[in-house]
């Protein structure tokens, strides 16, 4: 599983559909409550991703190459040092919103 995920990750393209604002808001809330302690600036996950993939891919909320199945699978099965997250901690409805949030097309970065 681990090897397959590592190999597949860069090949995914960003999702094309734009989720509605409510789903994005719920997804952002799920990210804040369940992911941000490791995956925002200064977090453990951010540091380890920077080590593995480079600084440009270390902040999940800025990534444009995440794919729904990939996000879902990493959350439930863990990846490298990331612990697995159960359906109690992140129920399916929140998972759907989280996936929508992380895979939504991003506005181009301001120069």
């Amino acid at each position, binding site marked *: 599983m681990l090897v397959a995920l590592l190999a597949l990750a860069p090949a995914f393209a960003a999702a094309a559909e734009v989720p509605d604002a409510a789903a994005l808001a719920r997804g952002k809330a799920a990210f804040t409550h369940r992911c941000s*302690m490791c995956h925002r600036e200064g*977090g453990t996950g951010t*540091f*380890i991703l920077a080590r593995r993939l480079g600084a440009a891919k270390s902040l999940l909320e800025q990534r444009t190459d995440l794919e729904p199945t990939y996000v879902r699978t990493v959350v*439930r*099965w863990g990846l490298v040092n990331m612990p697995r997250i159960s*359906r109690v901690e992140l129920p399916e409805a929140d998972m759907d919103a989280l996936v929508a949030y992380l895979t939504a097309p991003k506005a181009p970065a301001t120069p």
Partner: protein
Amino acid sequence: MKLILPPGLTKARFDQAMAAFARAIGKEWVLATDEDRETYLDQYAPGRDESHASAGAIAPGSVEEVQAVLKIANEYRVPLWPMSRGKNFGYGGAAPRMPGTVMLDMGRMNRILEVNEKAGYCIVEPGVGFFDLWEYLRSRKIPLQMGIPGNGWGSVVGNALERGFSGNGDHSNNICGLELLTPTGELIRTGMGAMENGKAWALFKHGFGPSWDQMVVQGNFFVVTKMCLWMKPEDEAAISVEVKLDKPADIGWFTEAVTPLRLRGVLDGYVRLTSYQATATVPTLRKEWYQGRDAIPDDVITKIRERFNVGWWNGPIRLSGYSDVCEANLRRLLDSLAKHTKQEFKVTRMAGNAVPGPSTYPLQMVNWFGGRGGHIGYSPVMPADGRLVLEQFERTRRRFIEFGLDYSGTFYNDGRSATNVNLILYDKDDAEQKERVRKLFVALIKDAKEQGYGEYRTHLSYMDDVADSYDFNHNALRKLNERMKDALDPNGILAPGRNGIWPKAYRDQRGKL
């Protein structure tokens, strides 16, 4: 993870039980797919995943639902392992001791029921995390301080029930009243909460008659549904004294210098001293320093210390409280240190509320070998005596070197006792290294036992070994615990094997992994 059934239960009977759980609490909260079971594995397992694989999880959302779950578990003889948030990494995480046990995931019960600023306490459910409580206090500007362990991702209740600690001391000492369910479903409140209209539940620990709270801590006799926990009023001022000791042997005189001050309350929390390695394991990878499979040698240790400008032993001493008292205590501390060394110590003054919040930052250390990492800790409790502490350090470090593992040790001095946390990092995908970790752990238990020291807490895989070491009068205390277990839990459904306490129904599982 494929289904592993509890001992003695057929698949048909197991399926009937899971269906009954679903009828009682909703099928959404019965988690029994292969993927669900994966999410309840021990992320940092030092051995095989199967040794502590659950058969799934049940997640009730109320006291009444927990009671319904207990009734069904007794009817079908399904063993349950209560967990709060499952972030007890290094000790087993969200996994049970016995394969096939069903996790009783209390994470949905996550309300902060009360925070009392005047009396300094909170009443919380098991699913409340340190981040949740921190945010609650900060957003409402409530001037109370909470003890936060190194991994702040976990449960406030679960951590206190495991005797987790921080610089503020042993968190189980802050428990003042619990709401419990017995294995057969009776609802009980301890201490002053045993009164129907008790007004001092969270204020006075003992009530009338025997005091039960510490019977619950690290036990497997009850399910905790609410906890009253004391918190400290925000300090007016704080002073940090930076300690950097150059030589390994310095820990001996340092212990002698600070122990009397801790005993007298001049220092109001644990006095922590950590070896140099902790500074390297979080921000760097081992291969940046050393490629050998033996323990990191002294010349590399010197390079690490030079790069991070740290001592062999390091640790800030924090003084906090009223500013004038802090200054007086600082003078006492510096005078005591000056009797042993001419070294000057950097002193930093700060506001009393300048305390760090919860963080998962230290978890980066499991990336030390670069791949899927893990850690366990061997943590015996011993006298806070300089000579004995130095001997314990030297003996333990020799063992790490013997088994080719990098020494990382911390001593938490509480004035009378010192808890010596030895962190063992490993690569989960390196079977040969994990076997050395197992041999080291067994050797450390034996060494400490010979000195009369025992662990205060341990990983699932070593609970029986550590319980064996508490052997006064042929393990009389364990026998007492198991008599009580059989009386309260006749079907042995709650957390079989937790901390070496096995119910009659599963006693033949003792020692099996």
